[in-house]
Each structure stands twice: as C-alpha cells, then as structure tokens.
C-alpha cells in the first residue's frame, strides 16, 4: 500500500514538472507583457466570455455528440484558445455559407471553421497567419471514369457543395457546369445517383469518404488543385489588434509544441505534410538557441515563417455615379460591378420571378382541386374517401410552418427517394410544390363556399363554368393569398434554390457591405410586391368585367 502511495506521488511530481516545462513557453494572456486588450478582445473580456464559431457538419473537425455538445478538432482548438485567454468559451454552430456573415455581424468573436484562406474572404474578414491546417480540392469519381486532367471537365456537370472556396474558381478556370448542393450529404447522394461526373470537394473530406467500404467503386481521380491553407478568422481590423496577435502566437505554439499533430491523431485524421512542415519550421532555432520563428515587437511573424497570403484582388472599378450614390446615401454598390456577381443576381431575380409565377398558378390549381374534392359528388357513398384525405391535407398544410414543410420534403422525402430509387428532387420543384399546396389550401377555403353556392344556384351548368364563376367571386380573397405566397417564396433560399436572397447572402459572404446589400434587397422586394399587387388588381378588373 505504502509503495503504491509513493509511486502516485512521484508520478504527480513528474507530471507537474513536465507540464511546467511544456507550458513554460506557451503564450498565456496573463503572462503577456503588453497585456492591454483592445478592440474585440477587450469587448469579450468585458462580456467575460469568448464566442467562437465552429462547424457541426464536418466530422471530425466539428460535430455534435449525443447530448448536443459540440466536439471535434476545431472545438478543441477553440477551447484551448479560451483556456489561454482565461475565459470561458461559448461555441456557436456556423456553416460554410454563414460563418463570415456571423463574424461581421458581431455574433461571434472568432471563427475556426475549416476556412480556406482566399483573397475574396480577406475582403470580408481578417484571416490570421500562421495557418493551422491546409487542404486542396480533388475530384471523387466512379472508378471507371477515364478523367485525367481538370481541363477535360469543361462543360461537364460537376457536383459542388455550397459555399466552398474553390467553387467559383472551378467554374471560371475550368468551365465546369456546376451542380451545387446545400450540404456534403446531398452532394454525395447526387454523385451516387449519377447526376454529375464527379464531386469536387475538400481532399481532407473526400479521403475520409473513401475509407467507407460503400465507396469502394469510387476513386480520387485528379491531382489536388488550389491547395489552400486554413486560417482562424476575426472581424476586419481585428487581425492587427490584440485578439489577432494573440491568436497568431497561439497557432504558432500549437505547431511548435506538436499539440496540433497530437489532436489530429486523437481524432483519427491521417498525418499531413503541411502540419509536419509547420512543426519543424516553428521549432527551428538559430546558433544561440533562440527560436527563428517568433513575433517581432509589433506582434507579426517574419514572412519566411508563414505560408504566402493570397494576392489581394483588385478593387472592382466603380463608375462615378455609384460613388456619388455612396457619398450621399451610404449605399455601397461596389459588388454590383463584378460580372459574375451581376450574373448571380440576375439569375436570382429570374428564379424568384419564376418561382412566384409557378407558385401562384400551382396554388390556384391545388385550390380548385381541393375545393372540388370537398364539394363534388357529395352525398355519394364514396365521397368520404376523397373528402377526408383532402381535409387532412388542408389542415396539415395550413397548420405547419412552410419552412418545416420545405425541410421535410426536400431533405427528408427527397433523401429517401434518392437513397431508395436514385433520383433527386430539385429545390425549385420542391419549393413550387410546397408553396402551391400551402397557398392552395387557403385558396380552397375561399373557393369551397363559392363553389357550393354555384352548385346550388345552377346545378345544370358545366363544371368548368361553375369553377370559373367561383374564382371570379372569390378573387379578392385569392389575390391576398397570392401576394402572401410571393412574399413567402424567399424561404426557398433555405433549400439552396438560387433565388435573390441566396444571391445577396453570397455577395455579403464575399465581403460586400451587408447593410447596403440588405437595403437593396428590401427595396427590390417592396417594388416587386407592389408590381405583383398592381398586376393582380388589373387582372381582377379584367376578370370581374
């Protein structure tokens, strides 16, 4: 007993000694000579909490455990950062498409979320060097594919995942025909269902997919392209302040101490050359034993210790009138003078228009059918067979949120269909269907009493005339429902339909001024709804006369 007690003591002393030695060199906020927090760090200290955005859909970098807690390699990094700052950490789930928006809105202090360092993103946030990881884009294809060069992809459909940094470059540089899906799961399904020749995505993820025996018939065809280091991000301007400087020193220490490699192994991620190179670089010392890679008095690391930062993009040339607009109204229109952005917005507006038209017509058809199901053949023995299912549909459609209906049909039913029968529902189709049924149920409630009256008053009239008369009489009510459906159509952005709200978000995510672009979006919608109302009122006059 005695001997074991001593042994435990000895172990504890050893552990303390070792940790003192290891931790001695680690940057901690309290030890910092110039421990004067400014900017966002001062703000976080006042709040007594550091808020870090991490992913929850990117195992093993970020995911949730059974209790809903966020875990993963990047969650570890965030918690370690908080430990060094001696502050509790709150982890917030962010996605590829909203992470930089959440940062510029100030909802999070720091983003550690598989963010590749690119010039476009540097417009939207400050990306910290040293980088903590790196990956490139590769193409996952069926093993039988004969592809050998990226250039051979020109004009072919390629599956992409929304928000990845290389999507834009693949379209511009190799002329691929993009098939963009909202998440990795959907891209994976699309590739299996043969909707594209390959899935171009982060090699760190693709190699993990290949580990799955179900993917034995697939391979990584093309060499890795657009290799990009990953950076911790802080809001624009914070990189040069105490928060950015402290993170830079912390990342250097993660490399130097080998802790990052250790965490990578702990999460079962294969070793990478990048981390090995960084570890050696940050451990290197000169003849006198001083570290070669250490920050200067201003807190910056020597350029030779860092991966090169991407070339800053030339600012888009803005015409004089737009500058005048900015001076007078504060509206920054710069993103509109980029050809690709303009094309995205035009596609967005066209999609919004198309969706509105389809939903208006669809809801009318659904409304008429449901009203007929309610009224036709009443009194006949089989009538309940039609009436009850249609009543159930009306209740469910009106009393569940349309956004949940979109999720259920797109991700749930769509996922099942793809898994079982191998075909994928397009977001546009799902949104048209859901909005048609949602508004159609309300239309049915308006049309049904009108139809009943028609059938009583003029039972011998042909069905078509009865329906037309009911529409005519209930037109006022129908118009307000149709206007509402046009207003609700923006919800389709949540299932990656490339309509005008999605397009605006993408522009903001790439550094466009959020307040200006959101104001423009609001103005667009205001005018759009006015025009729709005016057209429907014209139609009303025409119908009634």
């Amino acid at each position, binding site marked *: 007993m005695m001997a074991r007690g001593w042994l435990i003591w000895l172990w504890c002393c050893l552990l303390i000694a070792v940790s003192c030695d290891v931790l001695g060199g680690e940057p901690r906020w309290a030890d910092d000579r110039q421990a004067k927090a400014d900017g966002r760090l001062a*703000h976080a200290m006042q709040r007594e909490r550091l808020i870090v955005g991490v992913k929850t859909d990117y195992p093993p970098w970020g995911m949730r*455990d059974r209790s*809903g807690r966020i875990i993963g390699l990047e969650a570890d990094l965030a918690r370690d950062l908080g430990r060094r700052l001696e502050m509790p950490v709150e982890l917030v789930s962010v996605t590829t498409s909203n992470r930089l928006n959440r940062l510029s*809105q100030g909802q999070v202090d720091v983003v550690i979320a598989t963010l590749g360092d690119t010039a476009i993103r540097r417009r939207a946030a400050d990306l910290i060097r040293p980088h903590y990881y790196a990956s490139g884009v590769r193409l996952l294809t069926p093993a039988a594919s004969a592809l050998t060069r990226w250039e051979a992809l020109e004009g072919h459909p390629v599956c992409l995942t929304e928000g990845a940094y290389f999507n834009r470059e693949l379209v511009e540089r190799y002329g691929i025909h993009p098939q963009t899906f909202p998440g990795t799961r959907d891209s994976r399904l699309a590739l299996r269902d043969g909707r594209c020749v390959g899935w171009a995505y982060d090699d760190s993820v693709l190699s993990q997919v290949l580990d799955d025996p179900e993917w034995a018939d697939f391979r990584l065809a093309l060499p890795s392209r657009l290799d990009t280091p990953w950076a911790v991000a802080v809001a624009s301007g914070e990189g040069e302040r105490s928060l950015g400087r402290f993170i830079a020193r912390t990342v250097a220490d993660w490399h130097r101490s080998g802790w990052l490699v250790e965490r990578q192994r702990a999460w079962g991620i294969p070793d990478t050359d990048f981390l090995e190179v960084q570890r050696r670089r940050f451990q290197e010392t000169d003849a006198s034993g001083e570290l070669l890679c250490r920050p200067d008095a201003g807190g910056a690391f020597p350029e030779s210790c860092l991966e090169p930062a991407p070339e800053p993009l030339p600012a888009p040339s803005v015409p004089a009138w737009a500058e005048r607009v900015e001076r007078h109204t504060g509206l920054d229109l710069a993103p509109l003078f980029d050809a690709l952005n303009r094309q995205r917005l035009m596609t967005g507006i066209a999609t919004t228009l198309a969706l509105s038209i389809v939903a208006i017509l669809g809801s009318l058809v659904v409304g008429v059918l449901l009203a007929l199901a309610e009224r036709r053949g009443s009194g006949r023995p089989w009538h309940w067979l039609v009436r009850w299912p249609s009543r159930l549909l009306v209740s469910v459609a009106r009393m*569940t*949120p349309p956004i949940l209906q979109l999720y259920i049909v797109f991700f*749930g039913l769509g996922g099942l269909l793809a898994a079982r029968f191998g075909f994928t529902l397009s977001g546009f189709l799902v949104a048209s269907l859901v909005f048609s049924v949602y508004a159609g149920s309300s239309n049915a409630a308006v049309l049904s009493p009108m139809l009943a009256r028609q059938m009583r008053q003029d039972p011998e009239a042909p069905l078509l005339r009865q329906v037309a008369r009911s529409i005519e009489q209930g037109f006022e009510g129908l118009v307000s429902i149709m206007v509402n459906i046009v207003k609700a159509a923006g919800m389709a952005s949540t299932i990656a339909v490339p309509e005008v709200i999605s397009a605006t978000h993408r522009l903001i995510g790439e550094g466009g001024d959020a307040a200006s672009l959101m*104001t423009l979006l609001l103005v667009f919608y205001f005018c759009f*709804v006015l025009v729709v109302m005016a057209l429907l009122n014209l139609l009303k006059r025409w119908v009634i006369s």
Partner: protein
Amino acid sequence: MTLAEMLMLLWQRTPDLIGGFGYNLLIAVLAMVLGTLIGVGLGAARYHRSRRVRLPAGWLTSLCRNVPSFVLMFYIAFVLPVEVEWGGGVVTIPLWYKATLALVIPVVGFASDQGLALLRQRAQGREGAGATFLVAWVQYYLIVLMASATASVIGADEVVGRVNEVIAFDSTPTFLLLGYGYVCLFFLASGLLISATARYMEAWFERR
C-alpha cells in the same frame, strides 16, 4: 442509429424542444400585441379627417404590408447591433427579440387594415364589427406562429433551431423526417387549438 434509438433520442430531448416551442408562442404573442397596438393607431390615423394625417399613415401601412417578414428578419439581424454596453457590462440582445421585431411589421399592416375596416363599419352602424376583428385577429395569430419558425434562419433560439441541433447528430433522411415531423405535431396541435378558439368565438358572437 436504429429506429428505437432515434425515438429514444427525440424523447430525451423533448423537454428541450418544448422549451423551444415556448419561444415560438412567445415571439408570436409579443409580435401580435405590439403590432396590433401600433397598427390600430395607424388605422385610426387613416380614418382621420385631415389628408395630412391620412396619407403618411397610408404609406406606412403599405410599407409594412409589402415587405416580407422573411427578408426583414435578415435585415434586422444584419443592421441592428448584436450587443450593447450597459452599466459597464456587455448585454447581448437575444436574437429572438430581433425575430419578434421582424414579425411586428406585417402585424402592423394587418392591424391597420382591420382597424380601418372596424372604424368604417362602426360608422355605418353595422353590428358585429368588433367580433369580425377579433376572429380575424385570432386567425392571423396562427399565421404569425407559423412564420415564427423562420426565426431559426437568423440563429434565434426556438424550436426549429433546437430540432436542427438534435438532427445534426444523425442526419439520415429517416431521422430528419422523424425530427421535423415531431416538431410539426407541436404546431399542428396549437393550430387546431387556435382555429377551434376562432370557431368558438364566432359561434359565441353569433349567438349574442
């Protein structure tokens, strides 16, 4: 996960989900109350004798009527501050406040129109104008409750956001269907309750 495990997980997280649904109910009630107060005021202004009062009130109403709450949600999330300094500390403005604010606007439009109709009917001496207003109000509450589910898109803490967290654990289509279907039942149950209330009120007013 097996089906039994999925159901078990949903059952375990039910208190959490019900708490989230409480926020939806609260967001909708607050938006209705605030929006009605402002909207009825606007409606009364539109009924005013002077053109100078009538016109701006009309413009404001059409502004509130024409902007989608879904877009407003993003607008308010982007443009209003996230945190304010208060008495030396930092106070975070909860995102559900912003979601409520976004939903107040369409309610203002609705209440302004209904309020104007109410005043006109009263002036014509028509019976039951108040009853029509109340029934329409309860039915509109149902619409606002459904719209409160979109608050999750700006990251507000409510039931859709919470069920998304549960689903993130295993995002197979089956679990997605179960999770979203379960939350739909919450909405369906309160929807049925609300429309039953509206019907009951209608019948009660007719009897009087």
